[in-house]
């Protein structure tokens, strides 16, 4: 009996100390972690937008579609719409979700895309989607489906896939197309 009491007390004390220690560190770091995540997203957003003089985060428009909220960061120059940036997600990555930040200009052309971290694609293969060699294939493409076939070349589309990484390429194209569909459907609202 005394033996069992000792076991329980020791284990309880160790767990309690561990728990409080983790709570302390969590308290110290949670704001920093949130800031770091926000900063990474903001940087990705800036890199896909044309030059602007407003605050795209303040002017962002939130649109509910497909059961979730899409945030469109709107870039303006002298109060004129010059571009929008938005994040889209594909669940068809080779291992896990792929988040893509897409930038569209006022002329409805893709300005740039950026693959958001973290993604879990195979290093050296699928992870090549983050490289400029792949991302540049999207630049300048018209978002209208009559102009650009949003699929990888293997499926008869206009985007060349990365060899040996078709699944990852396909997922990025899917994410872009999904986002663009929402953008096109709400174009007037976003460009207002």
């Amino acid at each position, binding site marked *: 009996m005394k033996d069992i009491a000792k076991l329980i007390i*020791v*284990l309880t004390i160790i767990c309690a100390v561990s728990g409080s220690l983790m709570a302390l560190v969590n308290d110290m770091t949670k704001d920093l972690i949130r800031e770091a995540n926000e900063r990474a997203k903001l940087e990705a957003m800036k890199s896909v937008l044309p030059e602007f003089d407003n605050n795209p985060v303040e002017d962002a428009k939130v649109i509910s579609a497909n059961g979730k909220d899409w945030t469109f960061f709107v870039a303006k120059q002298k109060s004129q719409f010059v571009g929008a940036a938005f994040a889209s997600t594909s669940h068809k990555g080779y291992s896990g979700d792929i988040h893509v930040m897409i930038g569209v200009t006022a002329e409805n052309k893709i300005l740039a895309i950026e693959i958001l971290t973290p993604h879990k694609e195979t290093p050296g293969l699928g992870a090549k989607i983050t490289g400029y060699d792949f991302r540049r294939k999207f630049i300048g493409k018209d978002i209208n489906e009559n102009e650009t076939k949003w699929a990888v070349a293997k499926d008869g589309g206009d985007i060349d896939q990365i060899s040996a990484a078709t699944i990852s390429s396909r997922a990025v194209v899917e994410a872009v197309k999904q986002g663009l569909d929402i953008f096109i459907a709400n174009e007037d609202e976003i460009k207002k």
Partner: protein
Amino acid sequence: MTFYNEMIKGLWKENPIFRLVLGMCPTLAVTTSVENSLGMGFAASFVLICSNIVIALLRNLIPSKVRIPCFIVIIATFVTIVDMLMNAFAHELHNNLGLFIPLIVVNCIILGRAEAFASKNPVMLSIADGIGMGIGFTLGLTVLGLCREILGAGSITLFQQAGLKWEIGWLADKTMILMILAPGGFIALGCLLGFMNHIQSLIARAKGKAFTPPQHLDCRHCTICKWGE
């Protein structure tokens, strides 16, 4: 002198990857590039040293019947703290390693050293053991990462964000993609293990002896299985 001996044994004689063959899960999973190997090695070493210190300090207070849950709680605490600190202060590195950090909890090197060494030895020696094993683990991961990255991707990446990445030009179109996929991990590890044994047998032969693997590193030596005896 003992401090030095305990430290140096982790490098070659009891190298956690090539001799103890412990922690194979992260070893095979993260060694696709040198950068990932180094990051995983440092994170695991930090946890190993911290957990060795605490377990050596508490070794006389923890009843042997609940020692395994106690060790796991202590290790998991350090891993969670490392995870949060890394996420806050080295965000880019955390993005690359994020997946593997929780794996450190179940990395058997850390539990293995807690059980086999820190729970039986004073703090200073446990620190030495932690440092030595940590360096040995990092070294092993790096060698494996180097082989796989050069053969599989034709590049050497030390730290991508800082631009420390070199492409090996003449290898660019001759890479074996297999080497950075999962099977490549097994192939590279197997070849390296064979190579290590070969070197050891050569050394033994030069001394005029037959090579025998160290018996005390055998699985039978571990006390985890002897529960209740």
